[in-house]
């Protein structure tokens, strides 16, 4: 009964899959909207005692997965309608898309709610396989290549992650059937070699799933080729979920190896990811690919925050939410640009502010937020991560991170005017913007300004307890 209370919202998606299979395709957009409403309603069930996630971190990440999952279901209605008209998608492809999306959203929620490490691995695998399928849904040559690359690289990593998880759990003497993610006190002698080997393999496995450098090579292709709602979920939820599982596993190793090991791994991967993003971001001429490299940057920042410890953990948790809002806005916006202009690459998609002012304006807003400028939500979380790093005496890493962040800032701000304005004489024809595509992105724009900080204010205890699970209290006591 307790387990059911922990995870039942995932069943909404399972039932939705069962209902959608025999349903006529023309009903699916409205049915999907109903599913989105039910998912959002499930977030209020803890208040009635009808839903009780295993711990505060599970609740925090479930809020993120559910909100962005609901957004993806909402945006998919108008987006898939436009895509299917534009590229003559057959009904079977549209239905396949919705079934794949329900599976993907359900597995992301399972990554938050399941309280067993082996089942967490299974949830992450289901998220990977369903998103591989979704990446290929557009049926183009490039999407097929991206899906193949995504499948082979992340599954190789995923299998390394399984051995790593087993070795690590075995090394710390943990019961594999236990329905709990909390570190347990163990009485048996522990194998440090198994734990270290497990940590390394888990780093490869979950690092690949998270798109952290140097395991990121699948990410720019998959993010740029996936349909916009899927790119947003991949970037905003799946990558962060994989990093959180990795950090939870590292927390288990503390009785056997120093916590510093796990922290150093996270800091190294975080800095490497920032370096990769800084090296490539300025050269991108395709909008979704630009935001894909930006995702590598931000997952690197989240890893840095978790690695720094202390205040930076609060920053990392907040950044999962603020980056999710901002990147979802930008991927929906890039999807809208593709639908309205049939491509999102330079130079043909330049002058967006003139031809499609709402879309161009939202791009300007999202880009300003994602580079970390105040007063937008990502600024505050990035500030917490960097200040947290300094207070935890990781000054060199913070300085390096700031230099790389400045390079990324320069890369994006140098590129962005090329999309927003037209060089030389203006003569762009005005393109009609469909409101169903604009409203979800506008809502995210409002959240970017006010909602990024509102969530911790709404659930302060959950926010604080989630950070304590990731070692907040321990960092301060040291």
């Amino acid at each position, binding site marked *: 009964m307790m387990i059911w209370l922990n995870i039942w919202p995932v069943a909404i998606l399972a039932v939705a899959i069962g209902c959608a299979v025999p349903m006529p395709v023309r009903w699916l957009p409205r049915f999907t909207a109903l599913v989105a409403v039910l998912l959002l309603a499930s977030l209020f069930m803890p208040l009635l005692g009808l839903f009780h996630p295993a711990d505060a971190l599970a609740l925090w990440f479930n809020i993120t997965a559910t909100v962005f999952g609901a957004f993806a279901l909402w945006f998919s209605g108008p987006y898939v309608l436009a895509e299917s008209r534009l590229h003559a998608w057959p009904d079977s492809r549209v239905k396949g898309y919705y079934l794949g999306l329900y599976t993907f959203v359900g597995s992301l929620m399972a990554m938050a709610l399941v309280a067993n490490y082996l089942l967490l691995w299974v949830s992450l695998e289901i998220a990977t396989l369903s998103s591989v399928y979704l990446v290929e849904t557009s049926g183009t040559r490039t999407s097929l290549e991206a899906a*193949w690359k995504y499948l082979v690289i992340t599954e*190789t990593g995923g299998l390394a992650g399984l*051995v790593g998880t087993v070795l690590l759990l075995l090394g710390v003497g943990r019961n594999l059937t236990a329905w709990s993610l909390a570190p347990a006190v163990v009485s048996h002698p522990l194998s440090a070699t198994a734990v270290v*080997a497990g940590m390394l393999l888990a780093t490869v496995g979950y690092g690949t799933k998270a798109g952290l450098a140097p395991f990121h090579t699948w990410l720019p292709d998959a993010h740029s080729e996936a349909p916009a709602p899927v790119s947003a979920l991949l970037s905003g939820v799946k990558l962060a979920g994989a990093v959180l599982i990795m950090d939870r596993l590292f927390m288990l190793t503390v009785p056997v190896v120093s916590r510093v090991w796990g922290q150093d791994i996270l800091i190294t991967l975080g800095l490497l990811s920032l370096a990769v993003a800084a090296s490539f971001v300025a050269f991108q001429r395709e909008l979704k690919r630009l935001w894909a490299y930006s995702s590598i940057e931000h997952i690197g920042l989240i890893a840095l925050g978790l690695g720094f410890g202390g205040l930076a953990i609060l920053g990392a948790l907040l950044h999962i939410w603020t980056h999710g809002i901002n990147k979802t806005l930008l991927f929906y916006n890039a999807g809208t640009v593709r639908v309205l202009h049939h491509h999102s690459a330079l130079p043909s998609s330049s002058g967006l502010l003139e031809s499609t002012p709402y879309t161009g304006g939202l791009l300007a807003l999202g880009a300003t937020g994602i580079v970390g400028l105040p007063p937008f939500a990502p600024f505050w979380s990035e500030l917490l991560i960097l200040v947290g790093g300094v207070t935890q005496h990781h000054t060199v890493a913070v300085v390096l991170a700031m230099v790389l962040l400045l390079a990324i800032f320069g890369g994006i701000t140098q590129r962005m005017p090329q999309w927003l304005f037209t060089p030389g004489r203006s003569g762009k024809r005005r393109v009609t913007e469909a409101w169903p595509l604009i409203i979800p992105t506008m809502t995210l724009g409002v959240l970017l300004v006010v909602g990024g900080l509102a969530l911790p204010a709404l659930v302060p205890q959950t926010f604080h307890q989630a950070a304590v699970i990731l070692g907040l209290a321990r960092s301060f006591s040291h």
Partner: protein
Amino acid sequence: MSMTIWLRLMASFIWIFTAGSLLVKNNRSARILYRLDVLAQTGLFAVLAVLASNSGLWVSAALVLVVKGAGVPGVMRRGSYAVERDYSAQGKFGMSFVLALTVALTVMGFYLGQQLNVRHPVTMGILWAAWLVGFLHLTLRYEIWSEAWALLNFEIITSALAVLLLTQFPLVSDILTDGVAVAMALLLSVFMALMRAQYGSSDVRKAGELQG
């Protein structure tokens, strides 16, 4: 022969079939080697079930036989027709180099098996050696079918390693893990057919590099 020797023998079969699939030149041979690998994994689980007096492992062995022995090759056949007669390896390195690497990785595997301080260190070493060779396969061969079978073989070795480490995998996780293998095979098979149709070649490098 003692049960421990049988256990080592089954692990050795997994290593042999893994190294074999690294060398074969067509899709049909790769499929046969995969099936042999499945039989060796089933044998390993059966011996482990007797050794550990663990009846749950018989269920795992039966699942492996049904899901991977029949299900996965059946699913893969769907995409395999497109590459049945293709061989397009254009590697810079000869097979002797690949074999030299295989020997080096095997030695490393044995060393790792000894270092972990767990039960059955020799069997563990053989499986680690197979795991490393399987990983090498994924990085050295570029044909669509070869990569697909390499990934499925890698899954077999990984799950064998996980079960040997734990002596028993929890049943629900075991069933779900087997489900992941089938889903992976399904996607691989569909993509194999689509890629062959798109490029008229079974070499993934013909697809060229994606932009960026």
